[in-house]
């Protein structure tokens, strides 16, 4: 097993990301979905965490019959490109096929999900510079001070919203509260193996991690809550594997 990994690793090492991406695409077209997924995962391992790579990885996993892993890849792609129609459609489709219930975010979450983390950061940065310029003009251009004061207040509100977006994604990446169920599982009433099964969680279910207790996660899905073994799910924002 070790030797296989090393051989594959050396093969990846000689390919540029573009070549590896094309190789994965060819494998996908040839119906070798597992190999395609392996190649896309190699790109992710190289640090090429782009929406395109995660999206194609999701497709390969879905075709390979791994619905949970597909939803995980699509969700990671959606984190990077939350307005991409293809990603949204495939994520929904994969969840429909696995029987998972899609999450229902609050309206404020919808707002912050309209841009990704980098876009919110850029928006905050640009607004910060423009705000400083407008503040300088408001101070120095006394004849137009009233106008610039309104502009400054508007830009300040925009900056606060942008910082809210930055904080929202930062929280997702740091606290990692989102997880995808990889294998179908049941939420249990307690972090013990022989306890009561509260509700079923199909593969691809996106759950909210409330707390972590060793090898168990206390998760919530909608109004329901229960315990899941950590081995059954993967945090969306965790280090990719």
């Amino acid at each position, binding site marked *: 097993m070790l030797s296989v990994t090393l051989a594959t690793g050396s093969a990846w090492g000689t390919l540029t990301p573009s070549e590896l991406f094309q190789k994965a695409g060819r494998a996908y077209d040839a119906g070798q979905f597992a190999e395609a997924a392996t190649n896309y995962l190699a790109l992710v391992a190289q640090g090429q965490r782009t929406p395109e790579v995660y999206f194609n990885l999701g*497709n390969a996993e879905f075709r390979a019959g791994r619905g949970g892993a597909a939803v995980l890849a699509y969700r990671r792609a959606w984190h990077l490109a939350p307005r991409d129609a293809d990603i949204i459609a495939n994520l929904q489709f994969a969840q429909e096929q696995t029987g998972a219930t899609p999450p229902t975010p609050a309206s404020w979450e919808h707002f912050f999900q309209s841009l990704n983390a980098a876009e919110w950061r850029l928006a905050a940065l640009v607004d910060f510079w423009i705000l400083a310029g407008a503040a300088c003009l408001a101070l120095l251009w006394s004849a137009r001070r009233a106008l610039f004061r309104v502009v400054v207040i508007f830009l300040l509100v925009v900056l606060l919203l942008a910082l809210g977006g930055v904080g929202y994604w930062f929280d997702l990446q740091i606290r990692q509260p989102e997880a995808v169920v990889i294998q179908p599982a049941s939420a249990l009433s307690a972090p013990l193996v022989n306890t*009561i099964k509260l509700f079923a969680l199909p593969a691809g279910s996106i759950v909210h991690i409330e707390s972590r207790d060793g090898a168990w996660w206390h998760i919530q899905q909608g109004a329901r809550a229960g315990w899941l073994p950590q081995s059954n799910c993967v945090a969306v924002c965790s280090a990719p594997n």
Partner: protein
Amino acid sequence: MLKQFSKLWTGLLLVAALLLVRQTFAAAVSVDLDVQPRVLQLGEAAQATVTVHGERNPPPPPLGGLPDCDVSGPSVNSQVSIINGRMDQSVTFVYQLVPRRTGALKIGPINYKIGNQTLQLRALELTVGAPTATGTSGEKKDTALSDLFFARLDIMPTNLFQNQLFELQLSIFHREIRLDSSFSLLNWQPAGLSISAFRELPAQRVMLNGQVFEARQFRCQARALSAGPVHLAPTVRGALVVQRERQQRGGPFNDPFFDRFFQDSLFNRAETRPVDIPTQPLEFSVRALPENGRPKDFNGAVGQFALTAQVKPDSAAVGDPVTLAARISGHGNFDSIAFPMLGNSELLKTYDAKLTAKELDETQTRGSKTYEQVLIPRSLDAQQIPAVGFNYFDPEKEQYVVLSAGPFDVKLRPAAAGAAPLTAPTQAAATPTGRDIAYLKSAPTHWRIHDEAEWSAPRFWSLQAIPPLAVVVAFILARRRQLRSGDVRWARREQAPRSARRALRTAEQALAMSQWEEFYEALANALRSYFGNRLNLPPGDVTPDGLLHVLQTAQVAAALTERVRALLELCDHARFGQMGSAALDREAGRRTLQEIANLLRNFEKVRL
């Protein structure tokens, strides 16, 4: 007129009195007997209260002849109340009962004759214990502290199953000592148990081993999450209330009255000392839910439940949604309850059920949950919605119970023209026809290793310091401008060299065109505007004499002062045609211009 009014008034009073009498006599006569406390020591007195309702002057109840008790009293108390227009009159007789012996003393039933009626006072039982060592005689025996107070844990019921709700009661008993009202539980982390908050029950007296104890009782709802033995051994920490010892023998006035005053007053208050109350550990066993007879879709509900369900509306078109509402009510672990959902079928398309109502008590164990599931009939054959089932384990019957509701009849009519047909999913085609995942995306434009480091690089953050710095600089500039606009003296001082330079430029142009009058006029303006602004003088005060006076007062060097005066006079003479032709020489004019420029430059360095 007055006579008629008087008659009317008298009539109204009579009617009111009749109504009052009718209300009084309409009420049935009833009696009630209560004795408190029911558990007491020999030598203590109990209070017997007999309340007579509906009779204004009842005779005293015949309690005087009670055997085994010394009876004193009664004291009588009458009360009249009107509630919702209904008058209630009650008379209360209070007796003091002092038992003569230990054991169980029966009081009543006693026949009580009120007027023509004979009523019966109910029978009660008093439990009388032996007096304590200090109870009556004042002699104090050596008593172990654990005999004076202890705590006990009990569960109800004792035969438990996994996930079954049960009551856990903590009882704290004490006698001859005072315990503070607050307690805390230490080492209270019962593994494998889900426990709600404790609530206190009314305090009472109990007889244990022939001794009378005050009992404080706390109860909570609990549930064992897994089967197996459970061992609970918490430490109950309370506070013993003791009288603070007197600091001084004898009162300050050496008088029994004042001694008692100081002993009972704020000067000698009680204090509390923490004490761990000995607690008997509680061990019990929790049985696993039986495998025998367990339904396949059992979801862990344990308790007693009922299921009702209905489908609304009862008539619809094919493709229109109908709602299946199911209500599960009862007592048990409601957090483990799941809705008995219907799955997709060839006849029905189903959606996830939603919890629409939750009516549970504060312990979340008694009440009801209502769920709704939206169903869409796919064809006219779906006239009957299948029954829904819910199962649970009944710990009292020790068996699984399967509840069901339905099937439900729905009158279906064909779908409206143009409505999209609903195809039934089949095993062969799990993916709906015409839908699939979107194809692969093309490669990104730029391959770049995802790195967050650029956002946290020192260079990035140092760049972000520029905007706030710019704002600070703008603020300083604006502040300076604001100061300048408010300080005339400072503003004119700043303006002085500029105004002089302007005038000198004008002079230079006049010199170039040999316009002597304008030239010397401009030179004079340069001097006047410079010194006028520099010294903040009104325009009319910039005369040679006035200027010399100011400069001398400012202790400017005499040579400079003299030179200013000479140049001003020169300009004035030239302006008014008192100069010879030598003064109108261009070279001489240039020297004068240069001299004035140098002079003003020198004055810029002089502090005025």
